């Protein structure tokens, strides 16, 4: 069964991973801009990274019949350097017109600091000014609850960004209702240890009737699994899910969100 990987950091993955994902039924991958695992030294480093995810990764994906889209930002982990963050935000607009760019992301909070919040709002301003979709990262572990609340509050100050054009990612059982009840989309990340397992994801999907939710692997340079989405689809079959409902979550939902950007074309 075909699926979409709506959140994968493919610059960290091998070409073999593209092949394995394609064999498992992946037809499109969306790559939010991310932290490199270390702080980049200059805005020029981001310029090259933006070129990599807008020009080079789509070609690498295309070799396996996989469409590649991306999102642009500086990650909240690098927001304490306000000067660097402002410089990077300054170069984003020149990339927004590229064919595969879907919006601003993954922005948000990491340690819930004032500078992170300031840079989050700066990104939201860019998204509002340029009519972009928004993909939000919520903090890890003990910081997620507070961060999710702060993010929802900050978004209320940008009324031109409608909630249905924002996905708040990495929700868990203690944050999913807050996100969905405010009208946003929610992303469930299938990531070992620090985020969500397949069965917990399915529990949440059943509780919320699979509405306005996508699931992703967030595969990156950490211990993560680029096949986490098809493995969860397999667990759904074991849990009695119909083919139609699995397809709803793995295909129709990400398509419904991302096609709000006219550049997103659902793969044939």
């Amino acid at each position, binding site marked *: 069964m075909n699926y979409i990987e709506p959140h994968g950091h493919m610059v960290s993955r091998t070409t073999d991973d593209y092949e394995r994902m394609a064999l498992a039924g992946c037809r499109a991958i969306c790559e939010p801009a991310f932290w490199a695992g270390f702080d980049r030294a200059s805005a020029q480093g981001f310029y090259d990274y933006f070129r990599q995810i807008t020009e080079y990764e789509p070609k690498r994906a295309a070799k396996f019949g996989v469409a590649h889209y991306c999102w642009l930002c500086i990650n909240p982990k690098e927001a304490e350097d306000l000067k660097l963050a402002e410089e990077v935000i300054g170069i984003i607009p020149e990339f927004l017109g590229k064919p595969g760019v879907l919006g601003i992301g993954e922005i948000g909070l990491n340690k819930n600091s004032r500078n992170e919040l300031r840079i989050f709002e700066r990104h939201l301003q860019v998204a509002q000014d340029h009519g972009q979709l928004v993909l939000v990262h919520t903090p890890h572990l*003990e910081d997620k609850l507070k961060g999710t609340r702060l993010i929802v509050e900050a978004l209320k100050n940008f009324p031109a960004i409608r909630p249905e054009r924002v996905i708040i990612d990495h929700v868990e059982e203690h944050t999913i209702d807050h996100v969905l009840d405010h009208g946003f989309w929610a992303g469930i990340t299938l990531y070992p240890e620090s985020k969500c397992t397949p069965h917990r994801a399915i529990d949440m999907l059943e509780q919320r009737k699979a509405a306005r939710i996508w699931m992703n692997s967030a595969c990156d340079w950490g211990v993560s699994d680029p096949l986490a989405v098809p493995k969860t689809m397999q667990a759904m079959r074991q849990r009695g899910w119909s083919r139609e409902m699995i397809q709803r979550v793995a295909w129709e939902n990400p398509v419904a969100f991302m096609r709000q950007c006219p550049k997103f074309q659902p793969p044939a």
Partner: protein
Amino acid sequence: MNTWTPPNPVNLADLGFMDARSKLIDLAAFLDRVQRAGQDDDFRVQALKKAAGLLSLDQPTRAREVLLSFSDPGAEPVEKAAMQGALGAFKV
């Protein structure tokens, strides 16, 4: 369009009991291990023991309650990020 069709009922104990049993024994063995080593005063271990108590709740909201028990309950942003990672339990 977009109507929800619930899954067909399956025996969830058949599907998940052995996995859950294994994880619970692993948790018990972890608590034994840190105690034998005299490390059970670590705030994360204390948070884990407190969270384990929530398993005996009556309502099907245990996962949510466990996650809440590990969480920073505050509402205000911090002045500056002192680190980039997270520890898994809020240090009071």
